[in-house]
């Protein structure tokens, strides 16, 4: 798929670990492994870092989505297998799995976009932000990767509905105080609920304190939505808590369509993450921050950390085959697209890498066993995520550049089963030219049509979609509405499969970007995998030296957040 320039052979050709793909999980593992002294080779078939977490220019994003979408050309035009020099191994060809489907990209003002095309850093796995207190920040601080990224705050969060009005999410006492859409009683109820949660959290950290209120065990096991009802919170506030603070996807009131009914325990954990995020860094405006130059900066930061610790990087280098021991069927190494064979103890692969079913038939049981994690599973719940990217002129809310908008289930149309999240980012984050914004949208779905429909509904709620027939009628509409909605310049819609990671002893497969707003689960699963891979060894344990600690304290815990 990519022209491979002639590469000098890699030296050495033996490693403790080979990692293929530079997504967040792969990069965390590469950094952790190199920090603990393992020799690591980190490969990526693409010419950029980040794999499915990359931030790309508009043309690069377009071509990446097209080349990784369904119905790809029959198999990579790789040369026929050169006979293996060493007859101790058998080689198994690898097949690229497509993560994306229903890719549809349209440009409405090509000239302007072409002029600025290289000034975009558009995320593949948007919308995604960092919670100040989430695991990814902890891991960055622990590993030292924080030295390579700077963040900015997301200015505001809103809840939207079909009326087009965006209401502030009252997520702190100051926000509740200032909120104009809540009644006084609602303010009182919401604050009381927050205090209950805080007091519960405090009581779980200070064991001796009997005065603090604790939520009962029984309540903790009950559905979160029932607990909120029990606290006599009105529907409006319940919806804000469930979808705009706990960031749930499925309609918790609808037991038929809800794939994941959250327990109070989990709900409290999610609120705790939000609440601790709010107060963690004094120069962050709220709970959410975003890396300047796009989310692709995060995997890159871990890669840099890994490189400092001796990890070897080769981009534009796909692997074409796995090498298995003829006798034992165990994993031995990989064959690169350059033809070179590289050996390692262990292998970690990008979720796109699979083996073709036809090649499995000729293998022994033991060999099949080794490759089991690479066999595409037919999933029972084929959950997908629909994503959308819009480049717009103007902003969805006056005077706000970086903002999160949540449409709770059923808020836009009655059949809306899942929450739709929209993240608007501006030129201040160096992701687009001035006076433009990039909008990321996502929603979970069972099939492509359902997901795309939901995203289009949210889009038309926020921005004026160009009417192709007649420009005049368009301008008339604009005159009618007192508020002019932002104008769409470019749009990408696609549906991404949600692939789970799998640990398979020597060969492990990593997960695809998940449907969450943050990196918490991705990073947690990476940490778990590392522990399995390396025994119970702790990640980055030697990184925090006392000297670093003191500078971190002065620097707000070491994370650079621009005001």
């Amino acid at each position, binding site marked *: 798929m990519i022209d491979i320039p002639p590469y000098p052979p890699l030296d050495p050709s033996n490693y403790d670990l080979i990692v293929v793909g530079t997504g967040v999980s792969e990069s965390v593992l590469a950094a952790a492994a190199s920090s603990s002294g393992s020799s690591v080779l980190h490969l990526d078939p693409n010419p950029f870092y980040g794999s499915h977490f990359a931030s790309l220019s508009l043309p690069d994003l377009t071509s990446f989505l097209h080349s990784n979408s369904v119905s790809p050309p029959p198999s990579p035009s790789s040369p026929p297998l050169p006979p293996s020099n060493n007859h101790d191994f058998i080689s198994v060809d690898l097949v690229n799995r497509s993560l994306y489907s229903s890719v549809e990209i349209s440009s409405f003002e090509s000239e302007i976009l072409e002029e600025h095309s290289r000034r975009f850093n558009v995320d593949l796995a948007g919308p995604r932000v960092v919670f100040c207190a989430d695991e990814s920040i902890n891991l960055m601080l622990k590993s030292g990767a924080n030295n390579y990224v700077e963040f900015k705050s997301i200015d505001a969060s809103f809840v939207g509905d079909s009326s087009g009005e965006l209401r502030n999410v009252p997520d702190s*006492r*100051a926000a*509740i*105080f*200032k*909120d104009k859409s809540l009644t*006084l*009683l609602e*303010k*009182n109820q919401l*604050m009381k609920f927050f205090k209950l949660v*805080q007091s519960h959290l405090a009581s779980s950290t200070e064991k001796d304190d009997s005065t603090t209120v604790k939520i009962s065990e029984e309540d903790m096991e009950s559905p979160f939505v029932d607990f909120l009802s029990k606290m006599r919170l009105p529907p409006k506030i319940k919806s804000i808590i469930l979808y705009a603070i706990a960031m749930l996807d499925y309609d918790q009131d609808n037991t038929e369509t809800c794939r994941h009914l959250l327990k109070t325990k989990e709900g409290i954990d999610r609120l705790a993450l939000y609440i601790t995020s*709010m*107060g963690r860094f*004094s120069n962050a405006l709220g709970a959410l921050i975003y890396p300047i130059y796009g989310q692709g900066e995060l995997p890159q930061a871990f890669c840099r950390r890994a490189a400092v610790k001796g990890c070897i990087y080769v981009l534009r280098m796909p692997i074409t085959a796995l090498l298995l021991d003829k006798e034992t069927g165990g994993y031995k190494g990989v064959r690169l697209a350059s033809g070179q064979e590289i050996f390692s103890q262990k292998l970690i692969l990008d979720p796109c890498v699979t083996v073709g079913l036809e090649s499995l038939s000729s293998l022994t049981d033991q060999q099949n066993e080794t490759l089991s994690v690479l066999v595409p599973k037919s999933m029972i719940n084929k959950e997908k995520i629909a994503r959308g990217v819009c480049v717009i002129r103007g902003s969805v809310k006056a005077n706000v550049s970086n903002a999160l908008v949540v449409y709770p289930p059923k808020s836009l149309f009655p059949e809306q089963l899942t929450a739709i999240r929209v993240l608007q980012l501006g030129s201040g984050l160096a992701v687009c030219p001035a006076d433009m914004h990039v909008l990321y949208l996502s929603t979970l779905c069972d099939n492509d049509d359902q997901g795309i429909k939901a995203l289009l509904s949210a889009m038309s709620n926020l921005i004026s979609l160009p009417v192709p027939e007649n420009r005049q009628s368009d301008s008339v509409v604009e005159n009618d509405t007192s508020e002019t909605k932002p104008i769409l310049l470019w749009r990408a819609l696609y549906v991404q499969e949600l692939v789970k990671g799998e640990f398979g002893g020597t060969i492990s497969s990593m997960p695809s970007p998940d449907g969450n707003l943050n990196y918490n689960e991705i990073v947690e699963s990476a940490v778990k995998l590392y522990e399995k891979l390396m025994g119970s060894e702790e990640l980055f344990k030697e990184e925090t030296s006392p000297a670093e600690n003191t500078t971190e304290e002065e620097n707000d815990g070491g994370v650079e957040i621009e005001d």
Partner: protein
Amino acid sequence: MHGRKREEDPNPEETAAKALELRSLQSQFMSNHHQKIYTKEAIQLSAKLLITNPEFYTAWNYPKLAFESRLDEDSDPSLVNSIIDEELGVVQNALERNVKSYGAWYHRKWVLSKKGHYYPSLENELQLLNDYQKQAHQKQDDEKQDDPSRNFHAWNYRRFVVELTKTSEEDELQYTTDMISDISFTIYSAWHYRSVLVSSLVAKKADGFMPKETIRRELDYVHSAIFTLEEKQSGWFYYLWLLDQTVKMEIPLRFSSWPSDGSIIILSGPDCFNASSSTTKLTTFCSESGSFPLILYFDQAVSGVSSSTVTIGSELKDLVWEPVSDKKNSQVDSCVWVARLKFDCREPCFSRKETKVKVSLGGIVSSMGCNLTAPYEFVFTLRIHDTVEVELSQQESIVSWTDGFDNWDDNALSNDLNSLTALNADTGFEWRKKAIKIEIELFRTLPDSKIGKLILARLLMAEETMISNGVHYKEILQLYNDLMALDSWHNQYYKDEHSVALIHKVTSRTESMSRHLFRYRNMNNIICLRLNNLTLSRIAAVEKLLFVQMLDLSHNELHSAEGLEAMQLLCCLNLSHNRIRSFSALDSLRHLKQLRVLDVSHNHICGELPVDTTRYLCSSPLSNSGETGREVPNKYQDAYLVLRDLMKLKQLDIRGNDLIFAGEEFSSFVRQVVPKLVWLDGHKLTS
């Protein structure tokens, strides 16, 4: 400080080294200071010292001296400016060390007051202060520390700079809005500053600050703070202040009197005890001295009541108005004023059976600045009854609180049960009434909260004062009962408020009042009000009780007789079975010149304890004992101060208190102080 635990010093050696360095700095500095050395090096040394320890007050004096000595030498404006900048820099660094250093803030003020031609920097000064205060509060406002700093010094300094720069109050009000909305809505100082600015703008009638709109706007603003975090008191303070403004702004001076407007008073001559007068419907007043009091009760303390401001349109002349308070002149502020009208059946004006007396008031100023300009008049009628001869023995019979009472069978009470009358026009009554109504509705929705209940009770009480229809008392009493259960810590306060509401409830309507009214057969059928067994801990609504001559407050929880001084007609008072702890708590009884019967039995009255500090504000008791030429035993000092003014006291019951009030010693003391006493503790004194 302020109950926070001091953390253990993690590094004692370092601290010791620092202390050593500081000590050497200090001694160097002191030697410079004493020798008046103001060289550049010496000044730098003092600056260094101040930045390390801004609390060293002497060190703030030195730069002031240095500053003045340097300016004497040469006064080139640019040099002055550079010296001032230097000084301001030192202060700023010192403040970074300790934001609450008095010395530093004061020095900054001093430096700024030194320049005349230095105004351009004042703009910066305000800007600097803006940033500084925001930062300081922001730092403190994270949830962990949860108590935003109360940096009075910075706010105080701010007012100074604002005055210098002539910053408009509107701008400053916006600044408080910014602080409250963007930084934290729990900053006491910001709310307080806001109240100062708002009241000044309202007083000035500034554009957009009419009382009605301003109060509504501010109420809506502070609601959000209260409902969001109901346990944060900063908002409540502002709210209560606003409520006060709502109730009191432009409020008229109100008053009640005895005799009241339109009433008929029957006067009997001396010694009318036990006179078998058949009068039932009207107030009968008996006087031994041939005079009766005219009582004026105001709801705010007033001064200026004299024969020129309050005139009587009848033949009675030369009235002497006296405040019912410890000081006796017309300039003193008092709620109750009394004048004695003499009547003598032989005088021509009283020879008629009926006389109308017109009283007009004008030129009275209340302590709250309410000035009564338009005169107010009221009229009452006097009827004179001929003197009835009474047997002496009967006159001296004991007054019993158990028998001899007839139920009240009279509906003509309404004239005596007058509530307060407004003396001047009430301009904002409608909007204030409406504002209170809105507030009541709102706080009814906040039922579970302690502070919400308290505010609701106060609001309901405020509405009652405004429209007095008596519909809220039941709810108010329930609220205070709930509060007593919820918050035992402030039990006494709630109990007091409960008592106030209860008395208001009783006195609000004729029907409820008449259940507590009786006539005492053995004493000319005088009116007796029995408020016994009601768990009262405080007396209130005396403005409605001015006509009462006999009052039973036994079996309550009273701590003091405060408030009773207004009831100038009182001749029999029962305070037995209460919680009075000393004679000084009975001090207000001194003003009841008509008092003949006093029952204070079964209280907790002690001789010397508890120490009552208010007594030191009065003239020394020793000088009093000198006056009368009597030695008063120390343990009876307080008793003496009260009893000596009760010249008409015939019956005293003090059983069931401290043992020092039982026995021969006390008995002989009392007989000396109160010569007219006949009955002591139920026993007739033998002369």
